[in-house]
């Protein structure tokens, strides 16, 4: 048990160190501003201290029987000016820490987004867009309250309290110490409270997770739940989770209730020690009554800021968590491609030599060799999970090979800049993204500065023109969720038109031949035929009949090229291919 706690503490220490490590790294470039913010905060503290000294003098004068109103007015004005200065510094301090923090968050966002352009696309896509939104948009903002407030306020509150305490000690150190008498009681109360945390906190985490999971299941699966007539049962489960989610917190609070509130009442009760001790010292003549009154006034200003300061410590670790999530993305490996290409490919032969690739610590390609001739039709086939898509994605430079090389026109693709390389490849998948822009702009993306005529010409070739013209706003229709409701097939055709405009010599169709919209299958097929005319084509197709005429079919199985050749050759020589073909034909026969 003891040992377990020790380990936990050690782990926590490491975590904290890294939290501050992250913070340190994160604040790079704005540390000067933060320093400024701290200095301003300290100036604010100094003004506050001075105002209390003025106040003390005023009180002494009053008790000594000073009768000149002008003196008090003067002091009053002084105190007023000091307070104003104090808040001027305070505001400037928080303002500068905020502007620094907002700037940092903005920079972090930019860095993260830029990173998405340089790391392997496959790695980018291993997180969902929802996750990116969560990290880049939502959670990034949560850094602000802590980072912007902690530095100036933590310093101001702690240093302020300590400075006041020291000032009190210079007046009378005995009373200064006596006022702290209730602090141990407060600490004991808080430590009892903290001690029960490990007992209840995990339960609340567990119940909250269970509740969130129940919510996701119930709401996400509501269709299935209703369809199976189980809304009552599932609803009951959710209700139970929701109630437990609340009860665990209420229970925890009930257990800690006394200690928390007792502690909160003890900490600021400086008068408990100050008043009696002050009275006693006055009685034995070692303390001036005027000093006692001054001490009373000063004491009111000492403890409250300390409590405020401790409220922030919890948040710091949360911020560390957020920043380390960002760092996870920023630490991803970049594609190793030069800024400027070192060589120009001659033709578009593609060759893969001994290509290995590991995904999530598991090698999925074990040495792929392939030769693809310029202007030929090539198909990658194989059982699901065989690695055929990975091969296509490596050729498209969505991933980076671990070892081995891919050459295009004799040039290692790692000697070409990504920008240059992308010009050679059109990668068409089932789901190509359409931006929340007009149709014409979406197609135009294929070729920088393409004229309207060129766009319309591409659209016509891809069988888009007619349906686009039938839309209310024609080519000016917005594609995104806010605009015209385009069907899956229509969206697919627009993206094919975009790829056609790009006119890249190598076309990769990654399962682009399975359709989300069977009704427009025929039109999509003819669009694809036009797109691929005269290109070096690499296609992954589920329907083997589609690629029966390919110049070369590569059969990929468990990360190896098992066989390569024409349809006839493979049928004759490879039992796996024959098997796949037969089951395909069995399904198709009735149709054709």
């Amino acid at each position, binding site marked *: 048990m003891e040992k377990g706690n020790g380990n936990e503490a050690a782990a926590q220490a490491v975590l904290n160190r890294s939290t501050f490590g992250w913070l340190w790294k994160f604040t790079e470039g704005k540390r000067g501003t933060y320093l400024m913010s701290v200095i301003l905060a300290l100036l604010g503290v100094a003004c506050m201290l001075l105002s209390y000294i003025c106040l003390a003098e005023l009180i002494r004068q*009053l008790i000594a029987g000073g009768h000149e109103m002008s003196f*008090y007015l003067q002091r009053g004005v002084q105190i007023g000016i000091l*307070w104003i200065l104090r808040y001027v510094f305070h*505001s400037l301090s928080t303002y500068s820490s905020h*502007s620094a923090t*907002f700037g940092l*968050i903005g920079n972090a*966002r930019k860095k993260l987004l830029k990173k998405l*352009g340089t790391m392997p696309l496959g790695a980018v896509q291993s997180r969902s*867009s929802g996750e990116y*939104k969560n990290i*880049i*948009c939502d959670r990034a903002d949560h850094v602000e309250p802590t980072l912007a407030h902690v530095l100036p306020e933590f310093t101001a509150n702690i240093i302020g309290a300590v400075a006041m305490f020291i000032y009190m000690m210079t007046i009378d150190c005995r009373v200064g110490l006596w006022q702290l008498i209730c602090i141990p009681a407060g600490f004991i109360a808080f430590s009892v409270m903290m001690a029960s945390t490990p007992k209840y906190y995990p339960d609340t985490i567990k119940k909250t997770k269970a*509740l*969130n999971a129940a919510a*996701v299941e119930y709401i996400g*699966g*509501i269709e*299935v739940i*209703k*369809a*199976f007539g189980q*809304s*009552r049962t599932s*609803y009951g489960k959710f209700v139970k989770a*929701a109630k437990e*989610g*609340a009860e665990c*917190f*209420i229970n925890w*609070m009930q257990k800690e*209730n006394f200690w928390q*509130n007792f502690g909160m*009442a003890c900490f*600021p*009760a400086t008068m*408990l020690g100050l*008043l*009696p001790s002050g009275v*006693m010292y006055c009685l034995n003549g070692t303390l001036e009554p005027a000093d006692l009154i001054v001490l009373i006034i000063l004491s009111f200003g000492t403890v409250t800021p300390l409590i405020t300061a401790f409220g922030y410590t919890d948040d710091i670790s949360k911020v560390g968590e957020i920043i380390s999530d960002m760092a996870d993305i920023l630490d991803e490996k970049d594609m190793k491609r030069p800024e400027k290409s070192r060589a120009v490919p001659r033709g578009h032969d593609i060759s893969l030599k001994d290509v290995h690739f590991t995904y999530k610590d598991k090698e999925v390609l074990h040495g792929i060799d392939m030769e693809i001739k310029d202007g030929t039709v090539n198909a990658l086939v194989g*059982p*699901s999970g065989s690695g055929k898509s990975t091969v296509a994605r490596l050729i498209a430079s969505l991933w980076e090979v671990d070892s081995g090389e891919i050459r295009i026109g004799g040039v290692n693709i790692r000697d070409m800049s990504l920008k240059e390389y992308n010009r050679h490849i059109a990668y068409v998948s089932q789901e*190509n*993204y359409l931006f*929340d822009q007009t149709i014409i*702009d979406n197609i135009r993306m294929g070729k920088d500065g393409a004229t309207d005529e060129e766009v319309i010409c591409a659209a016509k070739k891809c069988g888009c023109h007619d349906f686009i013209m039938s839309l209310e706003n024609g080519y000016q229709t917005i594609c995104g969720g806010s605009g015209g409701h385009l069907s899956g097939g229509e969206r697919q055709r627009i993206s094919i038109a975009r790829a056609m405009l*790009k006119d890249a010599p190598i076309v990769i169709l990654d399962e682009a031949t*399975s359709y*989300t919209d*069977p009704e*427009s*299958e025929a039109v999509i097929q003819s669009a*694809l*035929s036009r797109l691929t005319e005269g290109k070096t084509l690499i296609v992954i197709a*589920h329907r083997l009949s589609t690629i029966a*005429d390919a*110049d070369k079919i590569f059969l990929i199985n468990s990360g190896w090229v098992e066989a390569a050749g024409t349809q006839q050759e493979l049928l004759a020589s490879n039992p796996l291919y024959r098997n796949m073909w037969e*089951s*395909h034909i069995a399904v198709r026969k009735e*149709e054709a």
Partner: protein
Amino acid sequence: MLRTFKKFFDLCGEKERKQFFMSIFLGVFHAFFAAMRIPAVYVVIKAIFEGGLSEKQAYVSAGIIFVSIILQTAVSMKTTMLQTRAGFNTSSFKRIEIAEHLRYVPMGYLNDEGLGKITSVATNTMESFSGIAARCVLVISKGIITTLVIVLSMFFFEARIAIVALITMVIYLVGTEFMIRAEGEDSDAFTTSQDSMVARILEYVRGIAEVRNFDLFGKSITDVDSSIDRFTRYSTRMESIYEVAMFFLNILTKLSGIVMMIMSIAFYLGGSMSLVYTVMMIICSFMIFESLDQVGAFNGLTRTIENCADKVSEALMSPTMDIDGKELVPESMTLTVKNVDFSYDKRKIIDGVSFEIPERTTAAFVGPSGGGKTTITQLLARFWDVDNGRILLGGTDVREYSYDSLMKNFAFVFQNVYLFSDTIENNIRFGKPGASREEVIKAAKAACCHDFIMELPDGYDTMIGEGGANLSGGERQRISIARAIMKDAPIIILDEATANVDPENEKLLMKAVESLTKEKTVIMIAHRLQTVENADQIFVIDHGKIVQHGSHSELMNEEGIYRRFISERKEAAGWKLGSRSA
């Protein structure tokens, strides 16, 4: 601010609202018990100035503080529990209300995006509700009420100073309201800049493949940087407005304290106030507005409360239908549709459709996408309620059945398969709760799932979803068919599209569908020629109407959509890529 508070309290249940009010009420007492240090100080100071300082004052003052600690602890224990209960219970009840509401929302109305939003309300929004929102409302209302009570009670001691305090308080509150309003405009601009930044970033992230593919970096579409900069600017601007406002509010309370102090001294010098009172006034003048200062600090959060409240009401806004019919068992499985109209978003989708599907026959719906065939099949199972006309199951209107008793008769196979993050066994068993393992395996075998399940590390106990098995599209489809087989409902509604399924899987999928539909009433959105040909009835749907109806051979003899459809399908099935002749 009052509007925000109203929204907050409207959101709470009756009981929780009372608990919150009680907690605010007791909070005022708490402030008074905390202020007991003032009488304790008074005892000492009075003795100092009026003579007679003795040990007695030491004991009395210590006693008062001690009692104050006890009372504060006692009262805050009570208020803490009231708040905790009210806060957590409110969010728990709201979650339940959302879940309850969903039961009544027409199924057709639900989509991924909407459900995602609702999930986020039920989780994140409710979490910040029980945390930040509740605390913010309580601190603000307690602060205002406490200060008001202090200021009013000051009138009994010293009316002249009390007036200054009252004026300060009024200016403070007016100023706060003013600040919230002033922020309002900028805050709208701020929200707009935030929304546009989020939209830009999402576009960039979702379209990252295209951005790279077509080298769109730095183009206007992907200009995320300027939207980030704009957001940074507006955030900083909002913060500076807030800082300026807080600066004036802070200065206001502090300067007012100084004015009260100087006034007391003037009264003392003028002889109308005793020294004891004057010193006490000086001490108090800086404490009167302690609670008020907290009000200012929490003001920045009122917008969060309003956001929470708005999101929750939005989640509860979707239309509902009455699902609490009678527990009925249909007399037959014949479905009859009589003159049905249905509109969505003011657009007529189904336009005066009538037909009948007798028990144990197969009906195929074909037609162009967007023609309304999906909606018709959804109406049969009451994913929506019709606008006009009637849909009968076994001669009884589907609206007369309770929803659960209606659903007992249907099993669905959708294109989008939702599997729960649970074991495979439990996912299949969902079709028939309480089924034995043998029954589950039997259904899995019928749906051609058994073999691939046995190859998984934990077989039927393999978890699906995050950290669990990654199933292919075809495998997920088959599990959902096993689930439907398990349910053994007499009517099957099936969307046949087999997108993204490889050949081995497609064959198995067909076999699975075959075992599911044996001896059943089958309603399908059909794409495969064979299934269409074998259907007892074929309905061709276009523009919300039945444009053709009959058997395959009948329809092939007619000029029309169907014949075109069939020939196009045949052509598509024979399509080959890269045949250079084409």
